[in-house]
């Protein structure tokens, strides 16, 4: 069982695909497409949080950069969905490239706050400074080209496309975390000084991880824009950072599957609980408290622990 959790990426991907397809066609394809994209965002966030031990309170900047990168491309260049995606990712990567060297020098609260600071700047830029192009508070609405069956206006195609993207990102992350680079990130999380004294320029690796994280988050932003057909400052709102943090926490930081489980769990709570309970955010707050104090490893961490315990017990029994 632990082997499956650890190694069988095919199994995990199977579960994700089957789960989301079943969910989408029993609930609402539109809504579940949102869930899928959000999971990509959580995967991007968790590169820094779960693997490098750096929590960013300003990740909507990168989501928003992807959203506006895609939107500006579609509005002023060509409304090609693929080019828009590429521009969105490029925008996120660019921000990672320039903010990274400053941000990764810090950790803990300083890292969290530096990201918020840049997030605020970005929010101001899209809301006020460049309002002439971004449409300010109203944002911009867009239509994208379609080519035969490659039609992002078709919810079934869009859903399938986003799910494929999630699987691709998931697989990429899986490869990354199993590699030398992944081990190095875990080392940096636990004891960065020690990694430096193994002869590695940790700043460079942290920078690379930062760029990967911002690019993946931006990719999610671009997909959101294609899904909604508009971009507005809400994508970059610093106040919405709690969403991705909560999702990463609840799923279990540091595992790919945890990010997807957490992303889905958060979306379920925020989409469905909100229907029944007017001030559902209060429950979110309570849940955060519970996680912070008693459930640090999240759902996947908890599952893993249970399985590990079982295996240890079995091994002990076998020895006797």
């Amino acid at each position, binding site marked *: 069982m632990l082997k499956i959790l650890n190694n069988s990426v095919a199994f995990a991907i199977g579960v994700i695909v089957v789960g989301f397809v079943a969910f989408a066609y029993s609930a609402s394809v539109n809504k579940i497409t949102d869930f899928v994209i959000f999971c990509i965002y959580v995967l991007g966030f968790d590169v820094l949080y779960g693997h490098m031990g750096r929590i960013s309170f300003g990740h909507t900047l990168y989501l928003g950069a992807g959203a506006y990168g895609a939107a500006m491309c579609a509005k002023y260049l060509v409304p090609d969905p693929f080019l828009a995606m590429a521009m969105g990712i490029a925008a996120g990567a660019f921000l990672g490239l320039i903010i990274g060297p400053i941000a990764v020098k810090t950790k803990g609260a300083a890292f969290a706050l530096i990201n918020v600071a840049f997030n605020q700047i970005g929010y101001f830029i899209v809301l006020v400074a460049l309002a002439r192009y971004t449409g300010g508070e109203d944002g911009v609405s867009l239509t994208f080209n379609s080519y035969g069956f490659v039609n992002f206006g078709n919810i079934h195609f869009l859903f399938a496309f986003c799910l494929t993207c999630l699987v691709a990102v998931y697989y990429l992350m899986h490869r990354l975390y199993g*590699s*030398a680079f992944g*081990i190095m990130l*875990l080392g940096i999380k636990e*004891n960065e000084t*020690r990694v*430096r004294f193994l002869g590695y320029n940790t700043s460079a690796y942290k920078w690379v991880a930062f760029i990967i994280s911002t690019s993946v988050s931006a990719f999610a932003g671009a997909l959101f824009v294609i899904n909604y057909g508009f971009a507005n400052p809400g994508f970059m709102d610093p106040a919405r950072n709690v969403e991705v943090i909560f999702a990463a926490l609840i799923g279990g930081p540091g595992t790919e599957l945890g990010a997807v489980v957490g992303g889905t769990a958060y979306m379920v709570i925020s989409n469905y609980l909100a229907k029944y309970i007017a001030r559902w955010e209060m429950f979110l707050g309570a849940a955060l408290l519970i996680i912070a104090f008693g459930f640090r490893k999240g759902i996947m961490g908890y599952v893993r622990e249970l399985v590990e315990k079982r295996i240890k017990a079995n091994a002990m029994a076998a020895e006797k």
Partner: protein
Amino acid sequence: MAEVVITARGVTKQFDGLVASSNVNFEICVGDTVGIIGPNGAGKSTFFNLLTGLYIPDSGTITYFGKDITKMPPHDRVGLGIVRTFQLVSVFDTMTVLENMMLARIRFDGTYGKKRFFLRNLLKSREVDGCMKALDTIGIAGKCDVKVSDLPYGKKRELEIAIALSMDPKLLLLDEPLAGMSMVEITEIMDIIKGLKSKLTIVLVEHKISKILDLVDTLYVMHEGQIICSGEPNMVICDPAVKECYFGRDNVCY
């Protein structure tokens, strides 16, 4: 006259007015084994941190084979062969023994810095050059899949030494390698260090003075950030100034 490995000239480091390292002059030649002793808080670890680049001295210079490395970042010094262990055992608790060793050895792997560095599944392939050999020399190869947090303290220290040895050191700095070890483990570690003596240049900080007297060629004594005495080990420990710093003036008066 053998070639000089590392030289410290007038190295000084202050922490908020506390002079942790005060005008330290130090030199070690190729193949030598040197010990540094001194009471708690004397500045021994600080001196290691200065040599390895964790701290940059306020004044003074450090040269390595004639090259000025005073301001060189730690990872570059490691690349030159300056390898250290820490006083507080410093290995990765959340990883297995083998993963710890892999992390140290990736740098020497042919794929390092290439695309495969990011994508080759290391955990599955387990084939990073020289890992098992390094674990073998220190006798913990059998524990390679054990999580480090499950290892006893002494084994962690041995692992840290194995890691240091696996990194092709030219200059090995060991900060209290015997601290917290059982008698058996002390003997094991001493045997390892003795085996290295002919191959490496070693600086050793240690509180268990009696254990290292026969091992080191030269002994330095630090006190309040200064080197107060150095020379042939058995002569040094008889020096009145050394006795005084260990037993204290007050004790002598009473």
